[in-house]
């Protein structure tokens, strides 16, 4: 549906201190995870994708349209960005009104906006909370409200900035289900996260950021099979992958299910 092209992107906040030092890549529909230490430029990068920041050199094209040539509000039709801290955006006293804010800004009628909002709330599992005050909900649920707010805008590209912080196991699975749903719909979902298990389970492609550059770009399987690369970026593979490697499995698995399947296969083959 939407293709993002990044051409030799450079960015600095203050002249002389480059935060992004030459990034070129294409993002097609699918689930992409951006990992890397704090300070590597991940948050800055995604803000360049929706036009909040404009490149100091190079360009970002969303479906052929440069982010330099449109306003953020216009780009918001194509690229939705869910911020890390829900407190930075919640302002309505009813969850439903909050989720309707985005669609209304896009020019939809009250009725259409309501329908979209209700569908989005159902997707995040908060249908029962539609009439509540967002601040009566817990921190994790507030996060789901902000995700619903962007889902309701039905953008082809959805960016999630650290969605799993403070979520418990159920919350992480819920967000993972949303990622999978978006991907299956043919949309692009980009996530910044520190949770390697989450990445391994739900994402096809991984971008490793380090010092303002893309250190590695490839399928999750390939990236997590390179512990030295990850260590350079201050990261570690998922626990189950580490276990797989230490046990000498030929193709270290990314999930518990894959691990168990591989071991059972090995046992079967070994017994023959």
């Amino acid at each position, binding site marked *: 549906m939407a293709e993002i092209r990044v051409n030799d992107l450079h960015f600095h906040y203050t002249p002389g201190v480059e935060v992004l030092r030459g990034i070129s890549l294409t993002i097609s529909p699918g689930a992409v995870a951006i990992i890397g230490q704090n300070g590597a430029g991940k948050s800055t990068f995604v803000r360049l994708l929706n036009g909040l920041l404009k490149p100091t050199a190079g360009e970002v094209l969303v479906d052929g349209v440069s982010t330099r040539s449109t306003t953020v509000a216009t780009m918001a039709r194509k690229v939705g960005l869910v911020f890390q801290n829900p407190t930075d955006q919640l302002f309505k006293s009813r969850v439903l009104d909050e989720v309707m804010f985005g669609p209304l800004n896009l020019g939809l009628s009250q009725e259409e906006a309501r329908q979209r909002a209700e569908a989005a709330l159902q997707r995040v599992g908060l249908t029962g909370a539609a009439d509540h005050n967002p601040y009566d909900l817990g921190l994790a649920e507030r996060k789901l409200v902000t995700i619903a707010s962007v889902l309701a805008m039905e953008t082809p590209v959805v960016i999630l900035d650290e969605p799993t912080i403070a979520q418990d196991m159920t919350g992480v699975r819920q967000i993972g289900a949303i990622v999978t749903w978006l991907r299956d719909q043919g949309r692009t979902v980009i996530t910044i996260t520190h949770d390697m298990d989450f990445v391994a389970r739900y994402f096809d492609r991984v971008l490793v950021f380090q010092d303002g550059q893309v250190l590695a770009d490839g399928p999750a399987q390939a990236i997590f099979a390179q512990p030295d690369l990850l260590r350079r970026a*201050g990261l570690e593979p998922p626990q189950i992958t580490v276990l797989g490697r230490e046990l000498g499995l030929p193709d270290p698995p990314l999930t518990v299910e894959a691990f168990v399947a591989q071991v059972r296969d090995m046992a079967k083959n070994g017994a023959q």
Partner: protein
Amino acid sequence: MSVIKVENLRYRYPRQTELALDGISFTVEPGEFVGIVGPNKAGKSTLCQALVGLVPHFYKGAIGGRVEVAGLDVHATPVAEVSRKAGIVFQSPFTQMSGAKFSVYEEVAFGLERAGIPREEMLRRIEWALRLLGLWELRDRNPFALSGGQMQRLAIASVLVMQPEVLILDEPTSQLDPAGTSEVFAAVTDLCRQGMTVVMAEHKVDRIAARADKVLVLDRGQVLAWGPPGVVFSREGLEGRGVAVPPVTVAARELGWQEPGGTYPVTVEAAVRIGGAALGRDQG
């Protein structure tokens, strides 16, 4: 002589009908590292705050049962006094910076000044705490100019200078990257080795399983399990209740890789040992 004794603790926040804590009992021995895990809204934060008296003194509400920390009856003692024996560190590094001091060094002094500690003693404790947490080189930096991990270590140092017997941490690595998380866990493990009693509420069960002496599993205000990590995480039905279990443990359970005592491994090292042996058998 247990340093923490919780007996049938029950608590309800004001304007709520349900109990946030519903009959919690456990004891902690000096020098132990206790992890508190469980789904959101299980009562982890509430329990942490009950250990220093914020519940009920700061939050009001209705409380029952007994909490004894370092010999003090927490319900009957002012928070300022309890916090000299039990320090608490919260989730957000940012809001723990007092905002009143312009350098890391002075920030650590804040609590000492309020407590009326003599100056020579102050200087000694500040240097000790900053060196312990690896912040001595950063002592002239503005607290708000630190990284997340550094700020959290500063929060720990600020609490540590009061020389508490117990350190309580409420999801301290939630907002940190993996490097910052490792810094905090390393600092806490170090303190434990030096005799500090630590209670930490966390979502990162793999790290807790590797470091904690005991784990308390909470769900809906009640204790679901209590004991060493190997025993607790091997229990059936945890994931059904929304409690995360280390991935290696889930795998081990599926594959029947058991420790001699009948529990499952909860760390990579243990899983490598057991699994390696099992695989060797299968292929030998």
